[in-house]
């Protein structure tokens, strides 16, 4: 299985975050952020010969890093992702315009799953997915590349803000309805992905954290 990086993130109780996502909430200032380095996904693993052929001379995965913060507030797990996007794509405005997006990935059992294949039939992963301009947040599961099954979620809420050349996206979801199990140890694993709409990134063409990071949910 995939090793986790040395970094340990914590989601500690922060009063004042409430139950709704708020990327600009003052309370986020009390939470330390971790910078997660991202890398392009391997092109030869894209599950389509067309995608491999049409991107072989073109760089994808151009977002180099994402800042992540986690907190809890009264049984709600909050996450906030922030990254540089000088030329944002806040909505689909044409056939060939692709929206910015980001996602958090968790082993569905909270413990482990193969990250490089986005889960397996035995060890699926859960996704929290934000796509700029979409009406709702997507909560999904995947059990291999190209198998993401997502539904508009009632439990997961997302708010996004773009200012000063950065996206800041806040996720909020009741811990007991997060789409993944939280073991007694309160330690889960998390991974990150971001898509640059300006670079026409979508599907598996993205920046991702190639290893799990441990997240302790207090």
């Amino acid at each position, binding site marked *: 299985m995939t090793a986790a990086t040395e970094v340990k993130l914590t989601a500690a109780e922060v009063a004042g975050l409430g139950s709704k996502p708020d990327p600009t909430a003052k309370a986020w200032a009390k939470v330390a952020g971790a910078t997660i380095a991202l890398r392009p996904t391997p092109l030869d693993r894209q599950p389509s010969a067309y995608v491999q*052929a049409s991107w072989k001379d073109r760089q994808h995965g151009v977002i180099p890093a994402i800042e992540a913060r986690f907190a809890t507030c009264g049984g709600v797990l909050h996450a906030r992702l922030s990254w540089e996007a000088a030329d944002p794509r806040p909505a689909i405005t044409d056939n060939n315009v*692709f929206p910015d997006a980001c996602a958090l990935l968790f082993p569905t059992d909270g413990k482990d799953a193969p990250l490089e294949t986005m889960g397996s039939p035995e060890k699926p992963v859960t996704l929290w997915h934000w796509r700029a301009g*979409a009406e709702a947040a997507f909560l999904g599961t995947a059990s291999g590349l190209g198998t993401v099954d997502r539904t508009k979620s009632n439990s997961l809420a997302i708010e996004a803000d773009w200012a000063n050349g950065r996206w800041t996206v806040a996720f909020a979801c009741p811990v007991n309805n997060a789409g993944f199990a939280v073991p007694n140890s309160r330690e889960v694993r998390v991974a990150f992905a971001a898509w640059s709409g300006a670079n026409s990134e979508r599907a598996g063409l993205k920046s991702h954290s190639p290893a799990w990071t441990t997240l302790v949910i207090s």
Partner: protein
Amino acid sequence: MAVPAKPPIRQMAMVFDLNKCLGCQTCTVACKTLWTDTPGMDGMWWNIVNTMPGLGTPRDVFSHGGGYKNGKPVPGRFPSQADFGEAWDFDYEAVLASGSERGEHLQPREAGGTSPKWGPNWDEDLGGGEYPNSYFFYLQQVCANCSKPACLEACPRTAIYRREEDGIILIDEERCHGYRFCAEACPYKRVYFNQKRAIAQKCISCYPRLEAGVAPACVRQCPGRVRHLDFVDNKDGHIYKLVKKWKVALPLRPDFGVEPNVYYVPPMSPLAFNEQGEFDESESRIPIDYLREMFGKGVDAALDTLQVEREKVAAGKKSELMDILIARDWNDLLGPFTGNPATIERPPARTP
């Protein structure tokens, strides 16, 4: 990994006779009113008829890549909505309020209120050549349900599938995440994008009608008796006879490598005029190189066969080929799909 499409048990196919099309767009409107009149579909024309030679729909239709070269996928582009043509509105109210026959004329307007500078079939009836050797023909396009469907094979989510009972290619709208690789990969640019729903949509060959034994709307409503429909394996049917037996129906742009299941009877050209204004028996008005580019090398033999069979009929003899193409009884065009659309629900329920 997206896998090559499995061959179906039977393959439904169509033949369009380019010598008979009136350019009336009845097919286009039949499709529009049946399938693409809901939000996000305003600019979609799953069936379109363009004047050729021309830029087509979307603009420069055959220059956006996609398809296969030597069996390898060719990178493609998905043209903008402006290249497909914005959906227009018309100022009906101003015209009605003008109260006079000589008042306002009906004007198309784009969403922003601007006057359109491009649209589907924009260069209608312009054609090519110099007077008196000008020429054109109409080219009808729907999804060709290709045997090597570049759209299906491009989708990283396997959201596109090929039905085993008739080889029709469908997009599963529940699985589609709107990535649009399919639209880039289709060399005919027959995949549209619904911006409101963030999904790809395309011609569905009226499959709910086919399931009820009724021909697709574009086929059935064509007043020109242009469109033939059947399973390819029916040796007594029009498709088999036109494609395999008489070899007068050819794929569009075979160099795209997708093996389409829509075939075309190439346009027979009138003779060219020479400088004295007389017919030049050695020259046809539509350049043969252009037709070879459009329909492949088989076009010379197909045109010869058509000419021979036409002359036979002119000499009072019988020709099976001409009987098929004339289609005196229009039901003969429909293969096994002669059911009456009035007996089914409209629009028929869709469940991909």
